[in-house]
């Protein structure tokens, strides 16, 4: 490892630890922070590169922001940089959640906490619904997408098929459909 690489790796780790503490509301707040720190201030990467990291990060399975952090870290300081970014981003939430779990188990049977939790649970479906609207706009582009979504829903609710299998079926359907379209376009 070169001296510059070492210095960068350390700096990435510490900066991403800081990012990891303030990532409310999904990964986009981290993207905004990376933009501010590394595009505008340090000039390590360009806006276009950051856009690539997020769009590629989104199309790889797993945690979008974890993927984007790895792509950024690799670009900035190779594999050590990638690991530093990923660890930095996940350590704070893991530590915080461990505290939350401890408290949750202590208080969840308290009458007043239980009542508040009934309210919180009632808000979960609306929360998922509001998040899904954005997904809906980017995910459902034509009738084919709509049918696949309906099929996914039915397989989940009525066939009780494993969700892992349903995702794989979705991938297969996407590949098959694009193949059909490509052939039609050629002939």
């Amino acid at each position, binding site marked *: 490892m070169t001296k510059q690489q070492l210095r960068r790796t350390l700096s990435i780790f510490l900066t991403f630890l800081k990012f990891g503490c303030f990532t409310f509301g999904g990964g986009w707040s981290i993207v905004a922070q990376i933009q501010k720190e590394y595009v505008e201030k340090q000039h390590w990467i360009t806006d276009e590169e950051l856009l690539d990291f997020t769009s590629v990060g989104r199309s790889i399975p797993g945690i979008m922001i974890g993927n984007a952090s790895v792509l950024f870290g690799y670009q900035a300081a190779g594999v050590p940089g990638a690991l530093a970014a990923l660890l930095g981003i996940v350590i704070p939430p893991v530590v915080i*959640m461990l505290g939350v779990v401890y408290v949750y188990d202590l208080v969840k049977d308290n009458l007043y906490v239980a009542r508040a939790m009934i309210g919180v649970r009632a808000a979960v479906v609306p929360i998922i619904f509001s998040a899904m609207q954005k997904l809906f706009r980017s995910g459902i582009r034509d009738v084919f997408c709509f049918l696949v979504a309906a099929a996914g829903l039915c397989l989940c609710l009525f066939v009780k098929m494993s969700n892992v299998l349903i995702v794989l079926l979705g991938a297969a359907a996407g590949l098959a459909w694009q193949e059909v379209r490509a052939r039609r376009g050629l002939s």
Partner: protein
Amino acid sequence: MVYLELFLSFLMIGFTSFGGMSMIPLISDQMLTHGWMTAAEVADIVAIAEMTPGPLGINCATFAGARTAGVAGAIVASFGVMVPSLTLAVLAAMFLKKFKDSRVLNEAMYGIRPVAIGMIVAVMVQQSMNNYAGTLFGCISWPAVVIGLVSLFVLLRLKWSVPKTILLAAALGLVLCGVETAFPLPV
């Protein structure tokens, strides 16, 4: 061996989900089939993950892992969900150009995005049957229904942030469930 099971479970969740809310159906499926959590706890985990910093996937993995097998369980589960970032994202970083215009990936995503939406709707249905269940007409909890409608309104119309909505829902839960207990409906 619970650690291995946790790791494999979250490995599968990691490899078949694409960030944020698309993880919820997979997490719900794995937690319920393994008996690691109840549907109510899955709702709690979504709300708690939205209230604490960090990616949803890491928060859920830590929560589920810690409740199932303590701190070691939390680490193992979080590590499992990070594997795609550690493998696929590193590969993608090495071959960023090729990855960016990968046709197969884009075509698979064409089917995966809608199928994920279908799965999220299925989770919403399952969660609704659990979170709004109560004694009114033998099946409905009126406080939960009221809170659900209020949450939907503040999220969609007033554009409230998710943490703020959750706090409101918790407060309403305290008040309305108190009212429900004090003045039980004659049904």
